[in-house]
């Protein structure tokens, strides 16, 4: 056994790990889009099951919003590959030890079921055989919602299942953050199109508030865990807490304002939630890559016990 504890010296200050070669805008953007689309499909499905014919507009918007992941999301992912022309190799195998494998298959499944649901919605809107298309859409939306739920959260396990200290230190909190951020952004996005501040709009706003509170709690919990693991990233932590609190605060404020001006302000509030969600993803990537490059952080994280 090596003598004693680590005395803190590093190998000439050289990094001991390699950071993930992900472009933080492309991959951060994809995580945001995947969360938004997956949660949008989930919320559209829940609304359809609960409110049925009464809220066809919201359901329609949710189903179309879910098309972002199969289109822009997939393009972001393929663009980030080292050899993009071999993107289809992602479907050679299915590995439960690799969240990237799980996610690639989830994305394919989600793309197929969501595209089917959106297409059926589109056909139903054209007026002919409406009842049939609507019924079929109600069937395809179920697996789409399930896969959408996976899309919201698998990205957190993708980051946690690495040796990067910042991501590996607090897997539970990161997962809760990602899941709640996805639901918050979808709820905020869907409430924008609601004509009046009654019924569905208010319900979606309440859900967004609940999700944002969960996200803030998870953000603070993650910082506690990460600090105890010896990773000190105070500016990043401050930025995270402030942005989560700000999104929650501003969104809540926009709901409390008088009804006459509330439409524009509620749209602004939703935009802030979406921007905050995107910024959070990019920041998680940046903070992780930075922690991998710091040998003192990594080596202290890899001590026994």
């Amino acid at each position, binding site marked *: 056994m*090596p003598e004693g504890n680590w005395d803190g010296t590093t190998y000439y200050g050289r990094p001991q790990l390699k950071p993930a070669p992900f472009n933080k805008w492309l991959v951060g953007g994809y995580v945001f889009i995947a969360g938004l689309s997956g949660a949008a499909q989930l919320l559209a499905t829940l609304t359809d099951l609960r409110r049925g014919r009464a809220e066809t507009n919201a359901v329609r918007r949710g189903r179309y919003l879910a098309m972002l992941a199969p289109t822009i999301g997939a393009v972001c992912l393929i663009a980030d590959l080292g050899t993009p022309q071999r993107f289809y190799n992602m479907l050679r195998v299915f590995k439960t030890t690799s969240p990237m494998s799980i996610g690639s298959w989830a994305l394919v499944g989600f793309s197929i079921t969501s595209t089917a649901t959106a297409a059926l919605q589109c056909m139903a809107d054209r007026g002919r055989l409406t009842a049939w298309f609507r019924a079929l859409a109600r069937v395809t939306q179920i697996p789409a919602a399930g896969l959408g739920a996976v899309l919201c959260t*698998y990205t957190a396990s993708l980051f946690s299942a690495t040796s990067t200290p910042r991501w590996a230190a607090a*897997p539970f909190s990161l997962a809760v953050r990602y899941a709640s951020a996805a639901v918050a952004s979808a709820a905020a996005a869907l409430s924008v199109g609601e004509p009046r501040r009654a019924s569905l709009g208010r319900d979606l706003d309440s*859900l967004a508030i609940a999700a944002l509170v969960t996200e803030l709690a998870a953000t603070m919990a993650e910082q506690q865990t990460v600090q105890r693991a010896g990773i000190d990233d105070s500016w990043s932590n401050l930025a995270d807490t402030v942005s989560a609190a700000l999104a929650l605060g501003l969104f809540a404020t926009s709901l409390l304002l008088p009804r006459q001006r509330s439409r524009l302000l509620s749209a602004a509030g939703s935009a802030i939630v979406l921007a905050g969600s995107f910024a959070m993803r990019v920041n998680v990537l940046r903070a992780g890559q930075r922690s991998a490059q710091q040998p003192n952080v990594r080596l202290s994280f890899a001590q026994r016990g």
Partner: protein
Amino acid sequence: MDMPLRAADLCGNDLDGVIPNESELTAGVRIVPGRSYGFFTDTTLCIGCKACEVACKEWNNLPADHLGLTGDSYDNTGALSANTWRHVNFVEHGVRDDCGTPGQSGWLMMSDVCKHCHNAPCLEACPTGALFRTEFDTVVVQQDVCNGCGYCVPACPFGVIDVSTLDGKAHKCTLCYDRLKGGLEPACAKSCPTNSIQFGEVTELQQRARTRVNALHGAGVKTAYLYGVPDGPGATGGLEHLNAFFLLTAQPESYNLPRAPTRPANRVAPSLAAGLTTIAALAIAALSFLAPRKG
């Protein structure tokens, strides 16, 4: 067709002149598919000649990278990368203080390489199946499958594998897979002049290593220990053992190695469970908010 003489010379002989089962002569081990092979690197024998780095570059036709001097003792290679699969570490460790002890003086020299872990995190992370376990129990990247997603890079707890910016695919030590198939031991092990890098079957190497550690302890080098054997540093957190393991005489961090790395795949299920539970909880909240209204 007129080819320059040197060119004809270079590509003229396809394996004529190779002794069958050459590894029996050079390493004392016959290479049989189905057995587990690896390296035992005894850093107390390393003289820092870097023959291993050169042999690896020559055999694998790798370009030189990390150009320029680092100023970090004799280590101008810096680190393992997509084009550097063997890297010798140098630490000048109070050279004059330790002159009395047998073996090395104060120098710490170690030839770093891919550890070919038993539960390789890079292999477990790879979504295309490019990284696979060979018939010699080594970990190799299939260059015709890899699409350069780069997920293996943060997964590796030792910072070994890297994606090349030139060809957009991941590269690392193959334990000379092509040489093993031809009955030859890996290039680095063959070229090591002091037999610091020993190639053989993993279980036999571990026995040899334990004997060597006991001998060193007996000779007064009390700080000698094995890194990467079961239940030792470097093979913690679910990695089981490393097929390429080391005999070190100082703390692992001095050689830029982690003391207690963990197997990243152990975090997949807990993270997914936490995330899906959160979604479920928020979905239940959503259902209650969305309860049908009267009128």
